């Protein structure tokens, strides 16, 4: 947000602190420097692709972008929570894949009951999240390693139960049709789900004592512990939330494609979610980040991806762009921290 300022020189001994005033300056400060640069980048991307293709800024294309960004957006929102805690979840994509397969297979085997299918997927997601948290806390496995293992293992489980093939067909069911094509007040259902999830998580982080404790844990875990915060409970809950929302993304994936997908559509989502969180201003060592910033980054990434596709640019280049963006976001972040370039980064 702000660059380092020198220690304030002691003011004359008045004792009292002045109250901050409002005005446009306060508004800009509230948005934050990081978010302003994201808005700037978004405007630049829209202007660039808009000038190349006038349909880019049309309402139809914006809806396409929003729908395409919904699934990665959901994952980016929970990734933000995990990263603020000081963790990382690389297994979100595989969790979504497993949930997608689960929802379709349970739907089929229960005689086309969509609620059981969706419920089973969410339950699996929550259980996997709890398991991730338990491995990290009680197995003392570094979060990156634990969820990297999960990335491989959960994908494998999804492929095993589905025999590696797309499962079932759900678009004969009104609930799944509503999820994939329905609209509420002119906006697609999927986009509403992202908005609701993001708003709930934003409220949790910003307005509740739970949110304060989450920032505290990521900012300084020793100080958080000495302040009486139950670190284990919070960290395990963060991974459980991550698993549950990843499962929701998996259900939406099923709804969009019409069947349960073990790998296709969910592979690579972990990279997208981490990139969005880092670009959105999350400090990868924890303690800092916001849902607003992450959503802006999701919008930026979505617009960029759509623009490149509309221009017919090879999808392989999009991978290169994504990797570059992630590294660039972290380099900029570390520059601001002014960390000494000696040995491995902290």
């Amino acid at each position, binding site marked *: 947000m702000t660059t380092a300022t020198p*220690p304030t020189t002691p003011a004359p001994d008045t004792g009292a*602190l002045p109250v901050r005033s409002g005005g446009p300056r306060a508004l800009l400060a509230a948005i934050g420097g990081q978010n302003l640069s994201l808005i700037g980048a978004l405007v630049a991307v829209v202007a660039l692709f808009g000038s190349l293709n006038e349909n880019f800024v049309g309402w139809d294309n914006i809806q396409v972008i929003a729908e395409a960004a919904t699934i990665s957006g959901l994952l980016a929102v929970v990734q933000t929570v995990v990263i603020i805690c000081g963790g990382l979840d690389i297994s979100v994509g595989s969790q979504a894949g497993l949930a997608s397969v689960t929802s379709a297979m349970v739907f089929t085997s229960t005689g086309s009951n969509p609620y059981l299918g969706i419920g089973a997927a969410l339950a699996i997601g929550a259980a996997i999240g709890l398991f991730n948290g338990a491995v990290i806390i009680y197995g003392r496995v570094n979060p990156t390693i634990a969820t990297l293992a999960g990335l491989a293992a959960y994908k494998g489980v999804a492929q095993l139960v589905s025999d590696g093939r797309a499962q079932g067909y759900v678009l004969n069911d009104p609930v799944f049709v509503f999820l994939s094509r329905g609209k509420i007040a002119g906006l697609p259902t999927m986009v509403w789900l992202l908005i609701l999830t993001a708003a709930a998580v934003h409220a949790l982080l910003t307005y509740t004592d739970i949110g*304060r404790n989450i920032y505290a844990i990521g*900012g300084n875990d*020793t*100080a958080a*512990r*000495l302040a009486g915060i139950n670190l284990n409970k919070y960290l395990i809950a963060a991974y459980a939330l991550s698993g549950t929302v990843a499962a929701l993304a998996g259900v939406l994936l099923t709804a969009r494609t019409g069947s349960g997908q073990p790998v296709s559509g969910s592979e690579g989502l972990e990279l997208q979610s981490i990139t969005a969180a880092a670009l959105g201003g999350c*400090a990868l060592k924890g303690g800092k980040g916001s849902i607003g910033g992450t959503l802006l980054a999701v919008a930026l990434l979505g617009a960029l991806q759509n623009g490149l596709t509309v221009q017919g640019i090879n999808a392989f280049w999009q991978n290169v762009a994504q990797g570059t963006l992630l590294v660039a976001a972290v380099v900029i972040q570390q520059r601001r921290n002014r960390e000494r370039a000696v040995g491995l980064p902290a």
Partner: protein
Amino acid sequence: MTPPEPTPPPPPGGSAGLSTEGVSKRFGSVQALTDVTVSFPPGQVTALMGENGAGKSTLLRILTGDHRPTEGRVLLDGQTLDLHSPQDARRAGIRIIPQEPEIIPHVPVAENVYAGSLPRAGLRRLDRAELRRRITADLARLGFDKVLDPDLLGSELTAAQRQLVEIMRALTGAVPPRAIAFDEPTSSLSEHEVEALFALIGRLRDEGIAVVYVSHRMKEIFRLADRIAVLRDGRVAGVVRAADTDEGELVRLMVGRDLSSLFVRQQVATDRVVLDVRDVTTDDVRDISLTVRAGEVVALAGLIGAGRSELALALAGDAPIRSGTVALNGRVLRLKDPRAAIAAGIGLAPEERKAQALFLQRTIRDNTSLVSLRRLSRWRFVKRRQEKDLAQEYADRLRVRAPSIEAEVRTLSGGNQQKVVLARWLARKPDLLILDEPTRGVDIGAKAEIYQIIADLAREGTAVLVISSELPEVLGLADRVVVMQNGRTTGELTRDQATEEAILALAMADDLATADDLASTAQTGETR
């Protein structure tokens, strides 16, 4: 203040051995050393003494190239040394045996000793034959071949063996050692090992090496040292010949400041016991018993490493209590985690405020309200208005100097950061507040304000346990002083009995002193 050194005049052409000339060192606003001129002649053991914070570590670091002096210079045999790094000092022949040996756990002793200059064969392979030849020769030369197996892994070594590895590092290498500094080398050694170490130090001295020996232990110093240099508040308080002095003089040299004008304490202690610790043993302290009454300020004095901070963490629920009981207001507590301690009414402002207490990227408001959030919330939603009022109230009361309570804590000075930590606990209103080194790294103005805050707290009936390594602070603040050494309490002094000399005597007592000793020490004002 700085008596001239009563050493023989230096030989013509500058003094032999290692010396400093007018060395000063500032860290930001803190003056760690001021005009330190001291010499460490060859063939002699010079002990370096001083209270915690007197500047011993800083001086060692300057001698060994870890810090550069702000002013002044370091000389070896009259030649100015320009030391930019520990490697420079090593090449000049200056070595240090650090208090905590740096041992690589997964490699054998031989590779630990020569780490950084391992013998190489072609293609940068390790030359194992040469390594074996070297370690065997060096072990035999130094007489360590019976006690140190070169094939043991770093992780398998005892504390004494780890120290031997550091000593071997210091005594080997292309440049022969000219000066060697030992930083409290006996703290983790058994009596038998100490004897072996002393024999080795005697040999080094006889070989004409300048030995610098940092220790708090009087007995060792009088056995070993030829000369004793005492630092106080970053200045040389005196340099004396060991044969011409006694413990009493050394203690007087180490203390003797007057900051009493800063203290405003009046005794308001009541008879109601708030904290009652009985026979508490943890992994770091043994059989601790003490009480703190409502309105009373009890100071825990002792040297660094005496176990005071460890006891504080145990009382705050962050270290398991193996046996004994802790009661607060007559109720025995089960301190399974800090949460339980806070719920019971115990607050701790820990020693390392940045590492253990503060969230530097968050605001003063966030940092202040953290342990009071549940009280400020309804349905888990924090009531912003009340939170702001609370943070503002305590920021005003403690005179936190910042643009607003929305300022990030990292932008504040050390004193104001400490006030934010205090504000957090004052807002919570604990029955017992433990303050671990509350004025470390704080400028003198903020210090006086923190003393006032502590006095106010006591007047409001809070029981306060202060850990401090600054004796004037201990004497100025405390109604009662409990002294610890090596994880045990060695005595308790009332306000009337407590003098710097009496506290130091207890803090440095090599054996447990009896209560009679203490009483007579306190009454006569003499050290044992």
